[in-house]
């Protein structure tokens, strides 16, 4: 993305969130959804638009593990490591995920699918009552 495109995107988003209280997090979410990450070059633009310091924005981005400053190298696989999923065999799911190739693996602490644990999310699609086999099938269907 060229720098003028980035400037236009950020300016559009800033205009959309104009006057909104607590606009920083919605803005960061929208930017990451649009670009796949929050590029470091966007920080000065956002800081100027929101009248915050760059350090403050950097602090917010670093605080939340879901915000990325580099685009993902591969589709994201998030395996739930929280209590309900662990109790239902999430450990085996995690091991299967570690053995797989071609994705970025991240732990997540609850996808809200405790009632159909264990659960994982691959490329934005959630899967409940997962097994190592269903995980491999989901990875294979995409890759």
């Amino acid at each position: 993305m060229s720098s003028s495109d980035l400037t236009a995107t950020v300016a559009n988003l800033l205009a959309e969130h104009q006057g909104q209280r607590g606009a920083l997090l919605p803005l960061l979410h929208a930017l990451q959804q649009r670009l796949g990450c929050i590029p470091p070059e966007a920080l000065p633009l956002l800081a100027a638009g929101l009248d915050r310091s760059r350090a403050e924005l950097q602090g917010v981005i670093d605080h939340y593990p879901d915000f990325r400053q580099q685009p993902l190298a591969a589709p994201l696989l998030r395996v739930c490591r929280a209590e309900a999923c662990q109790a239902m065999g999430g450990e085996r799911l995690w091991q299967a995920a570690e053995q797989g190739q071609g994705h970025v693996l991240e732990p997540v602490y609850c996808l809200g699918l405790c009632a159909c644990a264990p659960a994982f999310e691959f490329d934005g699609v959630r899967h409940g009552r997962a097994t190592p086999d269903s995980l491999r099938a989901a990875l294979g269907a995409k890759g």
Partner: protein
Amino acid sequence: MSALRCQVSCDSAARAVGADALAAALQALGIAPRRTSSRGLFWLEPLLEVETPEGLMGFGPLAADELPGVLAALRDGTPHPKALGAVEALPFLARQQRLSFARAGRSEPLSLTDYEAQGGWVGLRAAQAMAPADIVAAGARLGAARARRRGLCGRHQVAHGAGRAGRRRKIPGLQCRRGRLRQLCRPHADGGRPLPAHRGHGHRGARARRARRLHLPALRVPGRRG
């Protein structure tokens, strides 16, 4: 089969276990299911509910490839291993009294027209037709009828609730003083069940109030000698 009316949840948990695949399989057969919120019976998701003269009949948990069997069973009136009968008669649901979640599993979550069709806006419409003073009066009645009490409702009511006169002593002195000093909630107008007498010093609410009182600054009364 075009007359078949049915619903499949679009809840996040239902989708995670294959509700979308089930809905797509229905679509492929020319049947457009309503996508409702979930009943909360997640162990039965994906749950297919089919409208019949006897009410909504459930089938679940149903994989997409089991759909032809279900449709055949419906057509022929034969039993199906995944048939659950009337969904709202399932013991888990029938035992519940749902208030905030009364429409869960029945309405399309993002459709305001569907919300309205199922009895939405009734309270708001009623309030719109009322004079402002009547709304305030109705609010006061609601407050008086509040089902859950907080605080002590007055000494005489506690004593009454204790049943026998001999139990009167068990009412902690703290609560009695509070009642006299009117530091506690007034008795509710409906005069419902009184507070159990065992709520004493150790009770969380009473303790919290006591702690707060200890931190109040003392009144400064000027001495007579100046």
